[in-house]
């Protein structure tokens, strides 16, 4: 993907790296680093372990393991300070070391992304604040790719929807502010969902706070950006169903089967072969001794082959791999054709490239084989069938036998919960009797502790009984004057936004629905309804938009108001105006040339790889007109979503 001229993600990465290393340099001499587990992965994305060693880090410990030793005088803690747990753990460990250790330690604590009042208070109450140097590392967005920025907040989904703790909204706002500071105000902020609305309000609030801040003497906040077109905020809550479906792109499938964390997947080496060489190990500080049979695979655009494959539908990956294999073979064969010395030298120069390519080809063939083994299995097939019937809108009760059978067959709980939640989301809840029945079966099959799991799912809103649903879903949708919906009405949207697309060409996709082999993610359809109005109208209504009276330049949600009224939560569209004179002055200077502008899409509560693929598909369609920068609180999948609710303890203890 081409780099963004507007927002340079490399720059963000470089700055994060520099900030961290400067902080490490700030402590003289060798030091032990104690790092919060959930930060280790994200930091591993932009700093290698060896770099940390170059900057004096001797050993790395996990905060959660509580095992930092007294081997170095200097100890640096690196943790998030947003809730009380980490500060308390830090305080405990400082006290423990002070008590146990014979040498006098120099402690520093680096809070990410900011020093909070709460961690001050906790350290103070623990009586250690005076003994530690406190710093902060303003680490907000971490670029996972050039077009994807993530806050890497593992718990953001759970916090937002289960615990109703809006910390991640605030952190998102804090992360978006520097973008506004660097590139100007988002000219428009468009969004859907209650949390999205709160984020928008926070952005406005922070703007006025920044103006009131004594230290800011810059003229920040006067001008809307020239390089950014708009900010679109999607609240995950408006579309749970998409996440619950099985992801069918290559990257999505890898995520479904092996799990991708911070651009890495841990995969059994019997599938992908053992590590090719020492240069790939110790990629991150989070990589402790390589676990016997597991191998960490880096999955990002540094692997060119993967970059080609990741967003394609999983069904065609083997074909593509075949092609690559054949090309690679013929490239390798070209050595026989090489006659002159210069030709041979040419070949030898390319050899390392061929070798890495071959290595990555081997890895991906291994992965694909494993994935195919799975997708051809009976359980996968039946799960997919249930999903498809559900989003097609057939009577969900026909699926109940299959789901019951799957429960009896003891397939992973997450899969069962995903199916039930999907049914609940799409059809506005299960009938009370069915729900009760399923609950009992789940408790029998997976243990009574899941009473808590089911309760949590209901609190999130993933599972509900139809009696308690305020709106009985009808495919006609809600009328014009109705208040905002309390649930997303998929039955209505299926038709209006054409969520189900029957003719899908997986080889040469013509619609985002290819990512789920026939289902277009609602969340991305919404983005389309802002930036691709004409196209979307043609798809949904089959008429040219011109006759419809909605120009493609219409701002915000215009043209799709009815659809939005049937989606949960607030709908908004705000224009950020700057100082008028300044705007005029810039018009005079720069004119309104047809520059390619960036659309920033922020997913609050997480985004799936499939949705990223769909957004990239949009970006490709829009190439030359606009670019899309994807921001999110975290990468999400159906499993991670229901796992937020799953109770992990059981009655077997003791």
């Amino acid at each position, binding site marked *: 993907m081409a780099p963004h001229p507007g927002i340079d993600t490399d720059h963000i990465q470089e700055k994060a790296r520099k900030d961290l290393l400067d902080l490490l340099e700030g402590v003289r001499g060798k030091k032990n680093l104690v790092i919060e587990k959930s930060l280790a992965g994200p930091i591993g994305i932009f700093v290698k372990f060896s770099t940390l060693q170059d900057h004096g880090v001797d050993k790395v410990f996990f905060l959660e393991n509580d095992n930092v030793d007294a081997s170095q005088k200097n100890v640096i803690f690196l943790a998030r300070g*947003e809730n*009380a*747990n980490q500060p308390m753990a830090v305080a405990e460990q400082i006290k423990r070391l002070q008590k146990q250790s014979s040498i006098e330690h120099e402690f520093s604590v680096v809070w990410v992304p900011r020093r909070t009042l709460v961690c001050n208070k906790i350290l103070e109450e623990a009586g250690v604040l005076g003994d530690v140097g406190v710093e902060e590392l303003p680490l907000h967005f971490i670029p996972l790719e050039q077009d994807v920025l993530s806050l890497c907040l593992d718990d953001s989904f759970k916090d937002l929807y289960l615990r109703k703790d*809006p910390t991640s909204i605030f952190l998102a706002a804090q992360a978006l502010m520097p973008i506004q500071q660097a590139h100007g105000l988002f000219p428009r902020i468009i969004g859907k969902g209650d949390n999205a609305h709160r984020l928008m309000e926070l952005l406005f609030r922070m703007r006025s*706070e920044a*103006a009131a801040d004594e230290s800011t003497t810059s003229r920040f906040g006067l001008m809307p950006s020239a390089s950014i077109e708009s900010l679109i905020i999607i609240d995950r809550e408006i579309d749970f169903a998409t996440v619950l479906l099985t992801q069918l792109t290559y990257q999505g499938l890898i995520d479904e089967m092996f799990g991708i964390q911070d651009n890495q997947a841990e995969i059994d080496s019997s599938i992908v072969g053992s590590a090719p060489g020492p240069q790939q190990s110790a990629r991150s500080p989070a990589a402790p001794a390589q676990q016997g049979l597991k191998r960490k695979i880096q999955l990002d655009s540094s692997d060119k082959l993967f970059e080609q494959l990741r967003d394609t539908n999983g069904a065609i990956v083997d074909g593509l791999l075949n092609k690559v294999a054949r090309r690679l073979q013929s490239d390798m064969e070209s050595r026989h054709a090489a006659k002159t010395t210069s030709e041979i030298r040419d070949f030898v120069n390319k050899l390392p490239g061929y070798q890495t390519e071959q290595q990555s080809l081997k890895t991906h063939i291994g992965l694909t084989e494993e994935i195919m083994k799975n997708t051809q299995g009976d359980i996968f097939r039946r799960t997919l069938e249930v999903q498809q019937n559900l989003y097609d809108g057939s009577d969900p009760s026909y699926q109940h036998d299959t789901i019951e059978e799957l429960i009896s067959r003891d397939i992973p709980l997450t899969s069962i919960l995903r199916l039930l939640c999907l049914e609940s989301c799409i059809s506005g809840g299960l009938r009370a009797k069915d729900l009760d029945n399923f609950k009992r079966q789940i408790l029998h099959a997976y243990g009574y502790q899941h*009473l808590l799991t089911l309760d949590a799912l209901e609190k999130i809103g993933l599972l509900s009984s139809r009696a308690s649903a305020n709106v009985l879903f009808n495919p006609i949708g809600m009328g014009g004057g109705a208040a905002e919906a309390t649930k997303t009405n998929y039955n209505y949207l299926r038709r209006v936004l054409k969520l189900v697309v029957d003719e899908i060409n997986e080889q040469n996709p013509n619609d985002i629905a290819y990512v789920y082999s026939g289902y277009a993610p609602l969340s991305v359809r919404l983005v389309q309804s802002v930036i691709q109005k004409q196209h979307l109208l043609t798809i949904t209504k089959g008429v040219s938009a011109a006759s419809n009276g909605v120009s493609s330049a219409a701002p915000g949600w215009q043209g799709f108001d009815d659809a939005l009224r049937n989606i949960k939560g607030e709908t908004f569209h705000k224009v950020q105006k700057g100082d008028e004179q300044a705007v005029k002055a810039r018009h005079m200077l720069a004119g309104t040339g047809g520059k390619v502008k960036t659309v920033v899409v922020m997913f609050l509560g997480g985004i799936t790889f499939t949705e990223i693929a769909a957004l990239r598909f949009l970006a490709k369609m829009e190439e030359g007109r606009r670019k899309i920068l994807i921001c999110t609180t975290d990468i999400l999948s159906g499993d991670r979503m229901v796992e937020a609710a799953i109770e992990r303890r059981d*009655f077997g203890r003791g």
Partner: protein
Amino acid sequence: MSNPTADWERVGDRFYRKIKLYDAVFDQDLELENYVIAGAPCAGAIALYRDEAKLHTYRGSQTSKSGIDVYSCAGKLIRRLNWDKGSIRGLGWSEDEKLLVITEDGVVRCYYDLQGDFTQFSLGNGAEEHGVKGCRFWFTGFVAILSNNHLIAVSHYNEPRPKLLAIPPEGIVHSWTVIPPAYTLSRSVEVLLAIDQTIYVVDSSEAEDRVLPNGPFKYVSVSPNGLYVTLYTEDGKVWVITSDFQNKVGEYESKAKTIPKDVQWCGNDSVLLAWEDEVHMIGPKGALLKYYYDGWVHLLADIDGVRIITNDVCEFLQKVHSATEDIFKIGSTSPASVLLDAVDQLDKKSPKADENIQLIRPNLPDAVAACVQAAGQEYSTHWQTQLLKAASFGKSVLDLYSSDDFVDMCEKLRVLNAMRDYRIGLPLSFEQYERLTAEKLIQRLINRREYLLAIRLSDYLRLPTNRIYVHWASQKVRDSTADEEAICEKVVNKLANKRGISFEHIARAAYDEGRSHLATQLLNHESRAGKQVPLLLSMSEDELALDKAIASGDTDLVFFVLLHLKKTLPLASFFRLLTSRPLATALVESSARDQDQSLLKDLYYQDDRRLDGANLLFSEALAQTAPQTKVDKLKLASKLIADNTKDPTASLYHKSFQEAQALIRLQTSLDNDLHGSDKVYTGLSLNATLHRLILSAHSKRATKAASEFRVPEKTLAWIRLRALVAKRDWAELEDIAAKNKRSSIGWEPYFNEILGAGNTKLAGGVFVAKCTGLTVRERSDMWVKCGMITRAGEELLKARDAEALEDLRARASGGGVGEIDRMIAQLRPKR
């Protein structure tokens, strides 16, 4: 206009000048000799207090009131600070014009704004017992000496940390001084102590004797650049040595019979000795210059000279800058001097002006630069103008000249002249202004409440003005006697549309003054919640603080308020605050879940959230280790929701709690019966328990348990199937097939599972035939999966499906092909 050299005096080969800054400085009645006096660096304010050790004439009750008076250099009283803290042992200034007052018992007061506001801290380290004897100051800190010679250093005044230096030897300290940290090798302050015949150098780690033979030294003084030290011996000799005590730079015999009252450096290359009304300047190489005064003289050393204060005058004694000297020295022919003359000629319309220019043509750029530089040194506006005119004339002749320096100098001179006005009384020299910087100068004006000038100056220098407005407003809310509404309105109106105004700062000033209503009102105009909340909390506006924190969206702030409130409020009122605020409740819940479950229990009880309460107890049951305590907790949980069994969720809970207890009991008894109380079954789910029972051939127990728990028939069938397959109990499976005509889950799953386990013989041999509900082709496919091509063919033959047989033939191999061919042949219509 007087000649600029009129106040010059030659000292050795250099010139010094004494500029009269102001006259009629102090009231003639003020007996300066009875006062201790300290001046802030860079022409700052002067603090005076009456020396208690001296007698003074009684002048009625008015003057007997003790206090510290702060004057400007022009003698304008800025503020009288009342003093009632006991005897003062140290009075000094920091670079940013903070007045430090140290009492005998080691209390340090830091007056930070010239207006009587102060912070206070104690020296500790034994200062209270032994008493402070004296203090020496540098720009950012000071050292205090105690009567037992211990030294305590304070290196900065924000969060000051008094530190005891190394312990010097006992003995009478004849004199002492400090070398500021900036000029020492160790980068921490060093103290020079004259004890006995010698000097000790004390830093934080050691006290070192420098072994000087010529003591005792009555005065020790360090030059402003920290390179040289002056020592004055008892017998009237002045020694100048380098501050590392390696080289002697000069020696001078003062021949004075009385010991001077003060010894100070004037710049970095001459030393002043002061007696009551006489000042001697000792220049390099022992040159001497004497000044006589009518009254008592005080010396206030600065970075580039000395201010001399008497009742009548405030004078500044400094070395003449070389650029100035070059221009004005009698008989000077330097290009700059010629250029200055040219301007004179130009005024007289004399052609000599051009001659002059031609004369110095090659050196013109330097001459212009020198004139600009010299202008900065002048105090008289006349000569400033002349020199700048000369520079301007000179640069007009030059083809290429960057006017930046010129413009810059004009700007600075304008500032300096405004400051030197007697009404402001900040007679800064050019060097002092450069060192002080414009920002700090503006801060000085703010502290003097010269708001208008400060704003003008900021606008002129393009600096932010927000701090000035905030200070003005804070002052207003403190001092104004108008009613609070009016003050608030006035302040808000004045500050509307100004950027970067901290209303929190103003509100805090109002609150400190006891005007909490006004403070609350002002705080409403503060847009940054992070600033509002802590103040609101300290004002005990709990509810408001919580609401503001929630509105800010910053969970940290909400959390902070909640922590505070939980500590200060009774639990019931704390919960009452939560009830109408879902966000706060959510935060309390989510943090209590990790840390304080009992709080959570109380919260649920208070809000009558039975189900959540039951969940909590259930979760506690999970945490228990012994089966009995688990059961007990579950019973408690049941009891909590026993009342409302009509609610469907509650009834499910109720039932599940019962079942969970039953399961625990069942598993405990199973473990006891079958495994000698090893925990094999404990912790398994119901289905897993059944699976395990069947796997371990306790099928009867499984059936019994299944009926107790009313496991659906289908589920049990599946569990049995999977367990038997896992056990490879083919006989039992065959038995099931033989005994049952139909199965609740159909026979297909049997086929699939058995096939999946690899037993094609059983799968094909027994179960395909039982799948009667399937089509012929499906069944034939099943045969094929088992590798039984012939059977598949027979199936199709029975149905006379020739087409499928053809397909089958294509997939067959070896002997099978022949068989299939035979069957196809059978189906062919015989002709």
